[in-house]
């Protein structure tokens, strides 16, 4: 079978699998977030944290819950890494405490659902940090994202109230009823296919070529599944999903892509159910789907169409890609991981063709909304829908409205603030890094030592790092040594601000929408469930977010890709 055909078939299987679970999972999540009952284990959790899960919260209260919970998470994770040196060897594997700037970076990274890793898992983190710290955040940071998205959806669905539900209930339900059950099943599948799951120590094994190599055990499969399902992306091992213990074969590779995409896509169904019109959900799904498929097709095209004899002999750009997966599967994975906030990698984005690298960059720059991170993809897309409705909605001769809610001054102010945050962080920090004398030295591919004698690739490395951080992706382009105080601190800040500032505006927006009375739909209303609107939304996303980064992209991947 030709590599191209294999890639297309894998993509087809993936779409079929996603389509199969779309409705049941979406409907199930809608029930989870609107049910009045509490499970016994949930009641126990509420009692232990002293929360009343039935108390309705207005947006400031909901936001306080999000911020307080996340702040405690950062603090706990930071301290856990700092005390690693005094933990018993059985749980620390003998690793020492993590340095303050890296500990801050890692804590921020996992709480912000980013999982940017400036450390090597197998050389720095013991069982305690991996399992109690990182894996727990993989679950709860994802649940926080879904909770905020559900709060925004409630803002659309409810009227004449400011109440958005209860943060603690949404957080606990997301974890207990959605993430954990799927993870258990997923982990079993991964283990069955060869991923490891143990608490073994470090094995020293002889290498075929002589010398020895250290191999870690660990609770890998359980962390792997939530890494993908919660669009986290932080690998147990440095090599992430290209490591055979994490991602043993082509099937697990496809399964992991499925896990990455399943919740973000299904949430559009949940959204449709909760606002009482599944067609509205389909329109959002279509928008996400068009961008995702378009990006995947482009990626496959550019990766398979590599120039030069070596690439043709290999059947595409194979540098930095696993033989087990090949070009097609790596392309699908690369697009899925950067169009969501996952950032797991099964191949090295730095080694993609110039355009391929650009596609991964652009995917993140669009704000990771197609389908995006768990929760964050949906609320990001809904904010873009508000912007699109505002601009184009006027063209039907009415002041703009979306899902029966008027988009007035307050709403547009909040949406505008939302879309300002990430470009400011990405471009601001990248510009600072380029302007200062120290940070550019971290690049592997500077003008002096790169193949084509231009610094375009090195610039892409820095741009990618901040794009990945501020958009909470967490994947690394590779090549950049980011474990310096400068990058640890600035990327850490970019991750925290890029995660929580947008949430402030999203929740404020939700509160403002929930207070409105609904506008009835008439023949004069803009039909936001029609293909025309989905097309318009795709255009607005590409033009508004895409154009923001055009100059930067021109000097990085485009300069490289067009040369």
């Amino acid at each position: 079978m030709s590599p191209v055909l294999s890639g297309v078939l894998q993509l087809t299987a993936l779409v079929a699998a996603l389509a199969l679970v779309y409705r049941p999972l979406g409907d199930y999540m809608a029930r989870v977030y609107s049910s009045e009952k509490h499970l016994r284990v949930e009641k126990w959790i509420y009692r232990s944290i002293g929360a009343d899960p039935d108390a309705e919260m207005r947006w400031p209260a909901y936001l306080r819950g999000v911020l307080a919970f996340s702040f405690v998470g950062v603090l706990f994770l930071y301290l856990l890494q700092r005390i690693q040196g005094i933990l018993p060897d059985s749980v620390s594997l003998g690793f020492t405490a993590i340095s303050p700037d890296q500990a801050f970076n890692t804590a921020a990274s996992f709480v912000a659902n980013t999982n940017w890793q400036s450390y090597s898992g197998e050389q720095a983190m013991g069982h305690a940090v991996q399992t109690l710290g990182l894996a727990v955040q993989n679950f709860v940071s994802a649940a926080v994202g879904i909770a905020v998205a559900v709060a925004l959806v409630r803002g659309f669905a409810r009227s004449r109230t400011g109440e958005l539900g209860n943060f603690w209930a949404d957080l606990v339900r997301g974890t207990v009823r959605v993430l954990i059950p799927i993870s258990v099943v997923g982990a079993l599948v991964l283990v069955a296919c060869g991923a490891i799951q143990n608490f073994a120590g470090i094995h020293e094994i002889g290498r075929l070529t002589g010398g020895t190599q250290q191999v870690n055990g660990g609770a890998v499969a359980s962390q792997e599944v939530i890494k993908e399902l919660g669009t986290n992306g932080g690998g147990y091992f440095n090599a992430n999903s290209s490591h055979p213990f994490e991602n043993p074969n082509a099937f697990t590779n496809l399964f992991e892509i499925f896990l990455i995409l399943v919740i973000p896509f299904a949430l559009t169904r949940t959204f449709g159910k909760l606002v009482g019109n599944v067609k509205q959900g389909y329109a959002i799904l279509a928008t996400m789907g068009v961008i995702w498929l378009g990006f995947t097709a482009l990626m496959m095209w550019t990766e398979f169409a590599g120039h030069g004899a070596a690439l043709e002999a290999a059947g595409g750009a194979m540098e930095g890609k696993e033989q087990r997966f090949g070009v097609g599967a790596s392309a699908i994975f690369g697009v899925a991981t950067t169009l969501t906030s996952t950032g797991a990698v099964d191949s090295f984005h730095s080694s993609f063709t110039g355009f391929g690298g650009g596609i991964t960059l652009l995917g993140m720059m669009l704000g990771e909304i197609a389908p995006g991170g768990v929760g964050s993809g949906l609320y990001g897309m809904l904010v873009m829908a508000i912007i699109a409705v505002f601009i184009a909605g006027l063209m039907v001769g009415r002041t703009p409205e979306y899902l029966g809610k008027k988009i007035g001054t307050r709403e547009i102010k909040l949406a505008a603030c939302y879309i300002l945050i990430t470009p400011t962080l990405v471009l601001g920090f990248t510009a600072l890094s380029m302007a200062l004398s120290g940070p550019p030295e971290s690049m592997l591919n500077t003008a002096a030592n790169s193949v084509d004698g231009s610094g375009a690739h090195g610039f892409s490395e820095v741009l990618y790092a901040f794009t990945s951080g501020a958009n909470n992706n967490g994947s690394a382009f590779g090549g950049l040594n980011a474990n310096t105080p400068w990058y640890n601190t600035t990327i850490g800040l970019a991750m925290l601000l890029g995660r929580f500032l947008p949430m402030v505006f999203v929740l404020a927006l939700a509160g403002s929408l929930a207070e409105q009375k609904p506008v009835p739909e008439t023949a004069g209303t803009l039909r936001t469930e029609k293909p025309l609107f989905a097309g318009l939304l795709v255009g607005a996303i590409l033009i508004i977010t895409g154009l923001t980064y055009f100059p930067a992209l021109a000097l990085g991947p485009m300069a490289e890709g067009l040369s």
Partner: protein
Amino acid sequence: MSTTTPVRTAPGETEESNSPGSEEHGRVSGGLFDPAQLVKSLPDAFRKLDPRVMVKSPVMFVVLIGSVVTTLLAVKDPGDWFGWAITVWLWLTVLFANLAEAVAEGRGKAQADTLRKAKTDTVARRLNGGVEESVPGTELRVGDLVVCEAGDIIPGDGDVVEGVASVDESAITGESAPVIRESGGDRSAVTGGTKVLSDRIVVKIMTKPGETFIDRMINLVEGAARQKTPNEIALNILLASLTIVFLLAVVTLQPFAIYAGAEQSMIVLAALVVCLIPTTIGALLSAIGIAGMDRLVQRNVLAMSGRAVEAAGDISTLLLDKTGTITYGNRQAAEFVPVKGTTAAEVADAAQLSSLADETPEGRSIVVLAKEKYGLRERHEGELVGAEWVPFTAQTRMSGVDVDGRKVRKGATGSVVAWVEERGGRVAEDTQKLTEEISQAGGTPLLVALEDDKGARVLGVIHLKDVVKEGMRERFDELRRMGIKTVMITGDNPLTAKAIAEEAGVDDFLAEATPEDKMALIKREQAGGKLVAMTGDGTNDAPALAQADVGVAMNTGTSAAKEAGNMVDLDSNPTKLIEIVEIGKQLLITRGALTTFSIANDVAKYFAIIPAMFAVVYPGLDKLNIMGLASPESAILSAVVFNALVIVALVPLALKGVRYRPMSADSMLRRNLTVYGLGGLIAPFIGIKIIDLLISLIPGIG
């Protein structure tokens, strides 16, 4: 509800008579755009360069700063033609934006000047304890009583409390025919600046000097009182945030460029910023708003706030008075129905005979129908020698004529039946059935009876009905397609109301309506999130006018009504409500279309400027130069020139408003997206290429 029904015009006529620019039915036009206005408004455009004025439009303020910066740089390096060229075109961009606003305002200024003439200082004859004293008009206070006699200018807004007079209101309405103003009732309001033509009235002043209707009108048409509307503010916020995003993209570009070894001059960066930020809509936004108000003024409607114009676009329920808006206001004969044994022609003949002396509109309509349908020539009273006319009285409730031994009567069913039976005549057995049928259809039956040598007998029934204006059904169908529900308000009984509602094609009706019913209906609709528009003129309409989202008061109405509404129709034509809604929609569409156009433009500008900036260091980027522009300088200059010229090119569109036809939201979006979205994407590629071709012809550049 008022009983006065001012001059009516059919909807079609109104459009033609009031809007010289209207080409076809259904299109809302905005008057002609005269290029000479551009020249006339130039001094104003320069005056608006004041930074304190400019800062109100964040987008154009950034362009102003860019112009100042490039000017300084150009002065520092006076030999650089490119710097000067960019500088000049950036200033032109700012100037064009100001020009657009100045032109929009200029159209109102002329109208304001006419109004000012009416507002000459008047001397008021104030009544002080029954004694008349002369005081300047400006010293009048609310509650003062003033006397006005023939030839006097009424010194302030108020209500007539004594007397009746004919008043020339042409200063405000432009209508030269005098109107009657009398104490009490719904025709008591008088406006300062209008002239009493006959008789004597005593007016109670209701507004403070400086806040009169005419003062407000001057402020409105001049745009002095113009405040940004909610949607305009929201759009400004979005534009400001896009400006920040693009500023950020350009400011951070310099470190990237330095790293790439292609440091850019400030002039190029300023040019890039100006090209990227949404200058087109930023420049035209306030002109669009002013022009929207102006389109209303041209139709003799004064909107007291821009908010009301915007709300008009959102209206989902229209309350329309039956009388005068939907029907002509008078019952007219529609049919002659014979009873068994007679023919329609016989009925027509008798009906015409009995109505010859009847000067009521109903009577006239019977004669007209007989002529049109049965070819009966109108006989004049003089032709019938010895005819004895029986006039209508409240007692007999019949009218008719005795001539040549024949007695013809027409009138209310009961009276005519009694008259026939009194004379021992015969009432055909189907009479009752026929009259009931007419009543049920919403009409009014009049019986026609004849007494001659064959005895007294009922001949037939005249079917009188409210005649719905032509084209109303189509108009309501259009409104329905636009998603607007029409509700007919009438004092008629439910049966009659239902029949007329069905004939006119309105969605709903409110029969036997009291002001309280109307208020309740508005509140009910609003509770469901709908925006309601209505017209009214009586004092008892005032609460409902105030409650409605768009309340259009008739100029003939009371001052209470005018005070309560947020629009005043100087023509007092209730049908205009439909046009007001269309103008509101057109205003919003124009805003959205130009915003979309403006943002879509950016794509082409990137393709022009980015290769020009960086192809030196990354030759591969020259592949982005898909327009094949001649040189980096001409590429950047062309983009800037296009950016400036497109503002001027779109001024007429901003002032006239984009083409608007009533259609569903879906087809409207499809159409406007194609024209302004796709068009906005493609147009600059062509425009920039053409400008580049011209620029590259200049020696020493290409």
